């Protein structure tokens, strides 16, 4: 498990082409909406969240990260029947946090990615729970066991997904 503190100058900053910037979140939405119909267990994964974390950590720009997270979250909200903004707020926070963390930590190796994804998944769920319950008034129940299992599953999946998405990175 290697999490190395690095200075801003030492950290690699990446960018992505426009097709990747638009296409990857769209594919994530599509898979998130389509695959659970055939494999219901897949609904425990949150592909848009993983994409948000990946883009945030790779770009290492907090403003870009929060905007990416916000847009992805709002689009995810619009696929549900709920009020738009719950996922938006949660993913904005995660995008900002991931990009801010990416500036300070080396998140290129699998171990750090696993831990970062685990932490940000729980953060995302906490923010979602607070907003949905506190602002919208939804009747949600918090289950630590469910959230931790889901966080572990997303972290494992995230490691492999990030390895795939690394191929689309371009040096800035």
């Amino acid at each position, binding site marked *: 498990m290697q999490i190395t503190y690095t200075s801003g100058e030492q950290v690699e900053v990446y960018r992505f082409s426009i097709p990747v910037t638009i296409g990857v979140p769209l594919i994530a939405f*599509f898979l998130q*909406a389509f695959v659970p119909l055939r494999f*219901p267990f897949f609904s425990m994964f949150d592909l848009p969240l993983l994409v948000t974390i990946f883009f945030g950590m790779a770009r290492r720009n*907090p403003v870009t990260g929060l905007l990416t997270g916000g847009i992805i979250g709002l689009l995810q909200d*619009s696929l549900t029947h*709920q009020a738009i903004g719950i996922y938006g707020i949660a993913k904005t926070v995660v995008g900002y946090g991931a990009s801010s963390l990416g500036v300070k930590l080396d998140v290129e190796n699998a171990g750090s990615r696993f831990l970062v994804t685990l932490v940000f998944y729980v953060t995302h769920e906490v923010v979602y729970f607070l907003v949905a319950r506190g602002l919208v008034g939804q009747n949600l129940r918090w289950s630590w066991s469910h959230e931790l299992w889901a966080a572990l599953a997303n972290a494992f999946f995230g490691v492999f997904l990030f390895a795939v998405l690394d191929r689309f990175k371009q040096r800035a």
Partner: protein
Amino acid sequence: MESVLGRYRNLIILVGVLFLQVLGLAVQVKRNAENESSRLIRIWTVSAVTPFEKTLVWIQTSTGNIWHNYFYLRGVRAENRELKAEIERLRLQQVRLTEDAEQARRLQALLAFKEQFISQTVAAQVIGSSGSEQSRSVYIDKGTREGIKPDMAVITADGVVGKVLRVFHSTSLVLLIDDQSSGVGALLEKSRVQGVLKGTPSGEVILEKVTSDELVQAGEPVLTSGGDRIFPKGLRVGTVSKISSGADLFLNIRVKPAANLSKLEEVLVVTKVEEKEIAPSQNSTMRAADILAQRLPSVPDKPAVEDANKNAANKPANSLKAPGSAGAQTKPAPANSSANPGAETAAKPTNPPNTTSAGGPKKSAPPSGVGGPVDSGTQINYGSQVPPATARPANGAAATVKPATAQKPAPPVVKAVEKTAKPAALPKPKPPQTGNDESQPDQAKPALPDQASPTENKPAQPKADQPKVDQPPPQDSPQ
């Protein structure tokens, strides 16, 4: 100042973005009316995502069709699909008929009662889901173009799925019944207890608002009650899986949905539900006695009765013998009817009119409309209102007499008589024994012979397709 803004630029932007989103949320929560303010972004997202889903579903379906219809089992799959559609239709029909029958018995007094039935549906394919565990909804490939509207019921052959929540041009969002914001008016099939079916955050389905003094059993089917004005009454929702005492004197009833909500592929959107009033002359007014009368032996064909009438007119002495004579012994005793004139006669209304008139010289009216004064000159009018008492003829007696007093002429009974007046070739159940077996007519006989004639009164041979019944002894046989 600039240095402060520059130093906390990211944080300020974060707070600003969050504030805007919170503001947007507040606006939506306050309006709370279909979130029309956010419709545009929903249309954009749905338009961006659903074409992929539709394409993939189309490719999947096409590939599957090519394989299954041409390579794997040519034609069988299509036939199977047709049969499944037929089963779906028949199940819907069965549900409706069963529920209607129950309804008719319970609500027979309410002539203005309205029944609902599904008259038009649109088949749709599930192309996607919301992708969120907190939002249990799916997208179907039919929208305003196909006439889908919000609040239409969505069902499968197994049971209720949900309702249409939002409609787009070629897609619709369906809210599943296990979502926590859904609500379905439901009732338990046996106990007729009504409640509200709701989803829980964990994806379970519970029946709320059922008080703890109600008797609810696990495994009891749950149907739609129709009270929500979305789902027609009588559709299967699920079965009770677990019952426990909840808070505030209400039961905590968990329901297992009949439809597999996690693996939906094809659904039916109910686009038209018709409502009509039951006509008073329909079976809704049928009494239990009338139903029983339908099951009793039939009235013979008219020509046969006319023949027998002629024979009876030729032999009035035989047909109107006094009780105790040989002829009277072969006919049902009047004591049968007079001894039990109440419910017994209502339920078994066949003996009295014929037995009293044919078996004895009684001319007075029986106590409760059972039989009537002897009038050998009148013919049996099959098209007129005939009380249940005439639904079952006795041997030869119906040919000579007719109960003149129909105290309670009811249209359903006429129906019953008309039905049973068909040729008696159809197998019929054995009538209930009244204690005097000899008084029972031969059910297997298509036409009733003159009982006074011993030669014509031989027991008819039962046909092969008829149930074997006890044959009465010959008329002149010693008792």
